[in-house]
């Protein structure tokens, strides 16, 4: 499905956050949104899924305005993993994941075969099948993040939006989460749009990179082409070394502030 943002302006509390953002997100690809703090990355993500409704401009899904599609219908094709979330203490992994089926359920009636199948698949994809009866609160940070990710996967979205999916995780868990996302993208051609902090994650785990700076799109394109020392210096104000690792990937290493 084709998701496009056209002429997006957002003002929150008198302060302009996004100014004339236009972008067509590549269908079936992984797009990373990066940029310095306060550039409007999370705001853009929230506009794309109607979490923020107070924007001017239009977001279209296959040519249709998402405002006219409506929240309920949108949630059947698009899932979002926000940063702000909560769950009652006794919620089990399985219960949490099953909430992902909420958009597909009829007002009356229980679990359909499709619901059970989607929940089972989501648990498998996130390697949580053995944890399904554990309480979410008892899990480690990485496992908990996977459980929330599993909830969005149970939604069986065509487009998956992720707001800093690796924040607060240690390195091993960061890679685990990024690998699951890559896996989902590959298996189901799910369009992934994620706000990332780590430039190397953006470089290694995305097909396109969108750089925001000062409320606007600063640059966009293939990660290998766009993530250069020059851009880094211009966007983040840091000097960086770029070298090739043993696997042949180019790694960006920030060395100092200007």
């Amino acid at each position, binding site marked *: 499905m084709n998701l496009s943002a056209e002429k997006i302006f957002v003002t929150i509390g008198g302060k302009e956050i996004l100014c004339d953002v236009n972008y067509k997100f590549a269908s079936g690809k992984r797009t990373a949104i990066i940029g310095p703090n306060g550039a409007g990355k999370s705001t853009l993500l929230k506009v794309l*899924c*109607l*979490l923020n409704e107070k924007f001017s401009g239009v977001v279209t899904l296959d040519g249709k305005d998402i405002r006219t599609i409506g*929240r*309920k*219908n*949108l*949630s*059947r094709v698009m*899932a*979002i*993993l*926000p*940063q*702000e*979330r*909560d*769950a*009652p*203490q*006794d*919620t089990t992994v399985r*219960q949490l994941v099953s*909430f*992902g089926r*909420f*958009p597909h*359920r009829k*007002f009356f009636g229980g679990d359909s075969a499709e619901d059970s199948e989607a929940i089972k698949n989501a648990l498998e994809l996130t390697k949580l099948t053995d944890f399904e009866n554990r309480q979410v609160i008892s899990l480690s940070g990485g496992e908990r993040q996977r459980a929330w990710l599993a909830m*969005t996967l149970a*939604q069986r979205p065509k487009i998956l939006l992720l707001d800093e999916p690796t924040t607060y995780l240690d390195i091993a868990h960061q890679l685990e989460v990024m690998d699951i996302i890559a896996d989902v993208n590959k298996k189901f051609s799910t369009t992934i749009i994620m706000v990332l902090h780590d430039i190397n994650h953006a470089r290694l785990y995305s097909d396109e990179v969108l750089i925001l700076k000062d409320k606007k799109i600063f640059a966009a394109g293939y990660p290998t082409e766009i993530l250069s020392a020059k851009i880094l210096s211009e966007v983040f104000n840091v000097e960086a070394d770029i070298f090739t690792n043993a696997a042949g990937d180019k790694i960006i290493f920030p060395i100092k502030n200007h």
Partner: protein
Amino acid sequence: MQTIKISLIGMAAIAGFFLSLIQGSVEISSAQIFYDLLGVGEVTLDETKRQILENIRLPRTIVAILVGVNLSLSGAILQAVMKNPLADPHIIGISSGAGLFGIFVMMIFGDAGALVTPAAFVGAMLAAALIYILAWKDGIRPIRVILAGVAVSAFLGAGISALLIFYSDKVHGTLLWMVGGLSARSWQHVELLLPYSIFGTCLTFLAARHLNVLQLGDEVAKGLGLRVNLVRTILTALAALLAASAVCVVGLLGFVGLIVPHSARLILGSDYRILLPGAALLGAAVVTISDTFARTIFAPTELPVGILMAMLGAPFFLYLLRKEL
């Protein structure tokens, strides 16, 4: 496991029902109750006892059950929509709003007019709206809800006190209004309450899944397709209706909506599909048993059940305050 727990709570509710019919200044045995109400057995009941059972204790017990159900469900809803473990219709002033408007209409139209509950509902909704307006600042924060609620409650409570003092001749049972009690509740009160209880309970049970999703936070709920603001408004109205109908019949009975949903949550967990029926049954049990206790412990003096609930509820409130906020 959950089925066993719910059955036990159901049994407690049934026990409360019979206890309330048996206990009192005139002893009526369970055999006599079964005979009179169900036509089982052969025990005869003299006319006085029959009158006491059928026209005093039975309606009072039914009112106790309905009030217990309404207030418990109201509290259970408010705790999810206001994201606050301490939200109880009494503590945050929704009952006071209902009371103020209810009493006002009673003064004009007399005691049990059909207009009283709708008026009380309007008052309860206005109180809820006031709490949201005061507490809303980039979304709802639990601590602001409770502080705004305390202020609204004090403000509206003062209005009630003033009305009751100036027009004490027009409203019967001033004390009962202020502390909440079941004294002299009759079939007329059952009729007043029953339609709202049935309507409110059915609607609440239908909203169980929405309440579950609301517990995940506003952003997650929106991502799952829930129209959060609309659902929150409808559910708040439902909680206000449940509380308002109870207030019109038993006055400002507090803490039921706090103690019961929390106890049910401790026993049954946070899944509203199980929690709501559990809270309804537990509410019926708690109010019937507490009322029986309150009216018999200092016999022949009858203690309003509201006093007992406050004595249990205030420490419980403090316990939750330490634990949850």
